[in-house]
C-alpha cells in the first residue's frame, strides 16, 4: 500500500491536483446551490435518478480517458453503444437466449474497437478521422439491424435491473452507478499505479519516445480501443434495459458528452495528462449541473450552455493561471535581479497546455 502511495506521490500530480481541487469546489458549489434552490436535491431518490440518467455516460468516460491520455480519441463510442443496443434487440426478436446475446454483444464491441485500433495503429491514420468514419459505420449497422422498429419486449428480470436499486444500498444506488464505481477504481489503479498506466502517459507525451523506451505503443493503443468497445457495448446493454427499448438511435450524439466530460476533467486533448480522480469529479459536476438545472426549471435541453461554458473554463483557466505566473516571473526578472530558484526549475505543464 505504501508502494502504491509513493508511486502516486512520485507522479507529477501537482498541477493536476490544482485543477482537480478547482473541480471539487465546483462540485461543492453545485451541491450547495442545488440544495438551496430545491429541497429535493440531496434526497436519496434524486441521487438515484441522477445515477440512472448519467450511468452509461459515466461508464463510457473511463476508457475514453485512457484513450485521450494515450494521445488518441474515440468518437465512435456512442455508435458502439447504439450498435450493441440494436444487436440486443435484433437477436432477442430472433429468439436467441440472452446469455448467447450477451456474449455476441461483447465480441461485437471488442471487434468494433479492434477495427478502430488497427486502422489507427497499423495504417497510421489519425484517430479523429477514423472514428468519425466508424461513428457513421457502427450507427449504420445499428440502423441496418433494426430499421425503424423498436424492440421493447425484454424479460422483466433484466429491465428491472435497469431501473431498480442494488440491494443493501438503501435504494440509493443504481446498477450502472455500482459498475461505474468498480470500474473507476480499477481504471484508477491501473492508470496511476501500474507500469501499464505509466506507459499510457508516456505514449501520450511522446509516442516516439515511448516506442524507443520499449513500450509496445501500437499493441497497447489497439488494446485501449478494444477495451473502449467492450465497455461501450456493456453501456449499450444497460441503456437498453433501463429504457426497455432497443432502437437504432439509442445514445445518438452522446460521444460529445463523453469527450466534454473527459476534457472538463483536465485531461489534455494532446495526451499525456489527466487523472481518473478528475474524471470522477467531472462526472459528478456534469451530472450535478444537469440535475440542478432540471430541479430549477431551467430549459433542460439548453443545459449545453453550462457544459460548453465549463469546457471553455477547462482550457482557459489553466492558461490564465500560466499567463499570470509568467507575468509575475517577468516582473521579478526585471533588471538587476537574480532568477528566483522556483523559476529556474522546469515549469510543470498544465492540462491542455499547448504542445511544445
Amino acid at each position, binding site marked *: 500500500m505504501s508502494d502504491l502511495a509513493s508511486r502516486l506521490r512520485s507522479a507529477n500530480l501537482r498541477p493536476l491536483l490544482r485543477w482537480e481541487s478547482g473541480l471539487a469546489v465546483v462540485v461543492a458549489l453545485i451541491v450547495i446551490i442545488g440544495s438551496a434552490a430545491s429541497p429535493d436535491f440531496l434526497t436519496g431518490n434524486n441521487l438515484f435518478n441522477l445515477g440512472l440518467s448519467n450511468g452509461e455516460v459515466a461508464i463510457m468516460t473511463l476508457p475514453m480517458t485512457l484513450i485521450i491520455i494515450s494521445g488518441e480519441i474515440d468518437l465512435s463510442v456512442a455508435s458502439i453503444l447504439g450498435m450493441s443496443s440494436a444487436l440486443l434487440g435484433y437477436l432477442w426478436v430472433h429468439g436467441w437466449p440472452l446469455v448467447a446475446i450477451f456474449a455476441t454483444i461483447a465480441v461485437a464491441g471488442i471487434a468494433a474497437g479492434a477495427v478502430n485500433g488497427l486502422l489507427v495503429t497499423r495504417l497510421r491514420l489519425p484517430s*479523429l478521422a477514423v472514428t468519425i468514419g466508424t461513428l457513421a459505420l457502427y450507427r449504420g449497422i445499428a440502423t441496418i439491424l433494426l430499421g425503424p422498429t423498436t424492440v421493447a419486449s425484454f424479460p422483466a428480470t433484466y429491465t428491472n435491473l435497469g431501473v431498480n436499486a442494488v440491494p443493501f444500498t438503501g435504494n440509493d444506488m443504481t446498477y450502472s452507478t455500482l459498475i461505474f464505481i468498480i470500474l473507476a477504481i480499477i481504471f484508477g489503479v491501473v492508470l496511476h499505479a501500474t507500469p501499464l498506466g505509466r506507459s499510457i502517459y508516456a505514449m501520450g507525451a511522446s509516442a516516439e519516445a515511448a516506442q524507443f523506451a520499449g513500450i509496445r505503443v501500437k499493441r497497447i493503443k489497439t488494446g485501449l480501443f478494444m477495451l473502449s468497445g467492450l465497455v461501450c457495448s456493456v453501456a449499450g446493454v444497460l441503456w437498453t434495459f433501463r429504457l426497455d427499448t432497443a432502437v437504432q438511435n439509442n445514445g445518438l450524439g452522446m460521444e460529445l458528452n463523453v469527450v466534454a466530460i473527459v476534457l472538463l476533467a483536465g485531461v489534455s486533448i*494532446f495526451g499525456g495528462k489527466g487523472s481518473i480522480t478528475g474524471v470522477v469529479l467531472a462526472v459528478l459536476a456534469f451530472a450535478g449541473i444537469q440535475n440542478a438545472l432540471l430541479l430549477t426549471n431551467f430549459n433542460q435541453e439548453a443545459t449545453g450552455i453550462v457544459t*460548453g461554458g465549463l469546457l471553455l473554463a477547462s482550457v482557459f483557466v489553466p492558461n490564465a493561471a500560466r499567463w499570470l505566473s509568467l507575468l509575475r516571473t517577468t516582473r521579478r526578472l526585471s533588471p538587476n535581479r537574480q532568477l528566483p530558484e522556483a523559476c529556474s526549475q522546469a515549469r510543470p505543464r498544465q492540462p491542455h497546455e499547448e504542445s511544445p
Partner: protein
Amino acid sequence: MSTTLIPRLQRRPDSAPGAGGLAERVLRIRESGIVIVLAVFVAVTTVVQHRFLGSANIQFVLVDTAGFALLALGETMVVLTRNVDLSVGSIVGLSAYLSADLFAQHPGISIPVVFLAGLGIGLACGIVNGIMVAAGRVPSLVVTLATLYIIRGVDILIVGGNEVDASSLPNSFLDIPKDTIGGIPDIAIAVAVLIGLGAYYLRTFRSGRDLYAIGSNPDAARLAGLPVGRRVFTAFAVSGAIAGVAGVLWGAQYGTINSTAGTGYELQVVSAVVVGGVAIFGGSGSVIGAGLGALLLSTISSALYVLGISPFWDQAIWGFLLLLAISLDQTITERLTSALRRSGTRHE
C-alpha cells in the same frame, strides 16, 4: 504552436520546394479518384434505374449538395490550418431560425437583407471561435466542441418550443432552391462559383498559401514570420459566416425550422472534407476536393434511394466509404513520401 490539433498523431510530409509539383499532381490524382468513384456510381445506378439521371433527381441531388458543399468550403479553410470547426451545425441552426424568423417579425423584408442577417449571425459566431482559438491559444477541437453546445443552447433558449413554418415564409424565399438555369439549380451554380473563387484564392493569394503553410508546420510558419494568429482567426470567421449563409439556405430548403435544425451536421461536413482528400491535420487538400466529397456523399444517398436500397443502409455505406477514402489517401501519401525520399538520396 497553440492552434494545433493533436499534432503528434500524424506528420504530413512538409511541402519542400521540390515536392510542390509532385504533391500537386497527387492532389489532382486524389480529386480525379473522387470523380472516378462518382462516375462509376452514377453509371451503375443509371444502368439499373434510368430515372436516376432524370432532371428531377439531378436537381434534387444538386440542391442537397449545395448547402453541404458550401459548409465544406468554410470547413476546409479551417482544417487546412490544422484546426477543426465543430460548431458549424449549431451555427446553421441558430442562423436558420433567426433569419427565417425575420420574415415573420418584419413582413415584406427583402431577401438579400435576410441573407445578410444570416451571414452576420454566422460571422459573429465565427469571430468568437476565432478569437478564442487564435488569441486564447487553446485547442480548436475543445473550443468548437464547447461553442457547439453553447450556440445550440442559445438557439434552444431563443426558439423554445416554437418553429417557423413555410406558411410564414414568402414564396420567393421558398423558391430559391427550386429556381434553375438550364436545369441546374441557381444555388448549385452560386456555390460552384464560390468554391471556384475559394480555390483560386487559396492557390494564388499569399494569405491563401499561408493557410497551407500554417497547416503543414505551424511552428515553422510562425518562425517564417507568417501572421499565424490572424490567418487562423480569419479562417474561423469565414467558416462561421459561411455557416450563417448555409443556415438561411437551410431554412429556404426545408421550410420548417425548429431548435433541432442542423443538429449533427458538423460530422457530415467533416466527413465530406476528409472524403474530398483534405488532410484532417492540415496542410494539404483543396476546396474543390471538399466540394466533390460533398457531392459524392449526396449522390450516394440519392443512388441508394433510387435503387430501392433501404435508406437504412446509407449511414453504414457512408462510414465505410469515409474509412476507405482516408485509408487510400494515407497509402498514397506514404508511397509518395518514400518515393520522394528515394529520389532525394539519388540526387545527392
